[in-house]
């Protein structure tokens, strides 16, 4: 990593920390959904997110499950929510979206895989 890239990474981290401090309720990344919250599923299959675009109400909990033999990593474009760890076959990752908006995400190791969560 170059000094510039390192600085950029540190800055990104600082911004994320700052954002978390400002608005904790925007997005919460967690494996288990809060009680009483509706859960929406996104399957990762054949190197694609299904559904590719998903519209959910504010406060919804979205769970990605990897159905491929290959690992995948759910990563928010613009770091609007925390990335998953490497999801091996059958691994899941959940995020609660408490703020309306369009959240584009991709697989950081297969970046041609792109999906969108629209929170209304």
């Amino acid at each position, binding site marked *: *990593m*170059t000094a510039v890239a390192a600085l950029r990474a540190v800055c990104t981290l600082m911004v994320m920390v700052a954002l978390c401090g400002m608005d904790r309720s925007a997005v919460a990344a967690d494996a288990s959904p809060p009680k009483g919250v509706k859960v929406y599923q996104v399957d990762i299959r054949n190197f694609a997110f299904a559904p590719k675009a998903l519209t959910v109400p504010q406060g919804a909990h979205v769970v990605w499950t990897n159905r491929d033999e290959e690992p995948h990593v759910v990563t928010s474009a613009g770091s609007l929510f925390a990335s998953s760890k490497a999801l091996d076959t059958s691994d899941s990752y959940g995020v609660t979206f408490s703020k309306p908006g369009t959240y584009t995400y991709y697989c950081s190791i*297969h970046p041609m895989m792109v999906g969108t969560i629209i929170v209304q």
Partner: protein
Amino acid sequence: MQDIHDHPAGGRRQFLKCMAWAGAGTLWLMKSGVLHAQPLGAGTSGTAKDASFSFVQISDSHIGFHKAPNMDVAATLRQSLALINAQGSRPAFVLHTGDLTHLSKPEEFDTLSGLMQEAHVGRTFYVPGEHDVIGDNGAEFFRRFGERQQAGGWYSFDQGGVHFVGLINVLNLRAGGLGSLGVDQLAWLKNDLAGLSPDTPLVVFAHMPLWPLYPSWGWGTDDSAEALSYLRRFGSVSVLNGHIHQIQQKVEGTITFYTARSTAYPQPPPGVGPGPGPLQSVTADALHRYLGIRDVRHVRGVDALAVTDEVLS
């Protein structure tokens, strides 16, 4: 390997033998500034004689993978490394073109290191695959296997009058994109090559293909065209990649592109099937035969894979 069809159920030993043959690696012979490829273990003592030096490329060992069609990727890597030591003349070094591990886990890196040390194959140069940089942007990979020439991890070195360049195209990938070199690395590459005479043979290696091999499966690098523009003034350029677990070869002017097989498992040819995952739709027995056929063709049908415009798949 001979009569493989007569022993379709030869068991694990036979299977591993096939895997080693199929995915062992490539012996590269440098002859008068032009690279000649040969599958490792093809009986190279004769053809290696007039080479000024040789090196071996292995790729995609995916330590940590434990599913069909290969439950023991450590064993198939070990077999590949044994073939390196079985060469008549000792290769100058080994290149590992990435995806050492499956999930970038410390214990997977440990296993890979242990296997490499145990095999005593000598100097080994590594570049990371996307599987080696998960979660930490490659920090663990670079700590263990980095050359530490440049902050970004890319590097170059000279061997026998040939200039070798190791590039990194699996970091800072953007949504919807392919592999990426980035402006810092491109600037360095331009500068690194600037002082070289055009008759200097070049070997450039990176994990993901440096040409648009099959972009819809992510088999390419977004800014490779810029890098290639720096290479075109040279008379002999070889670009070696991994990532796609199969041999694909192509010539563009003085640049020859080559992708290596995996020591772990094959992937389907471009566009065949729903995605580029492990080729596991075949049973273990069928895989034997499949890999066996591929081997026999390459090992016995072709004496040496010279640099030609033939597509080998």
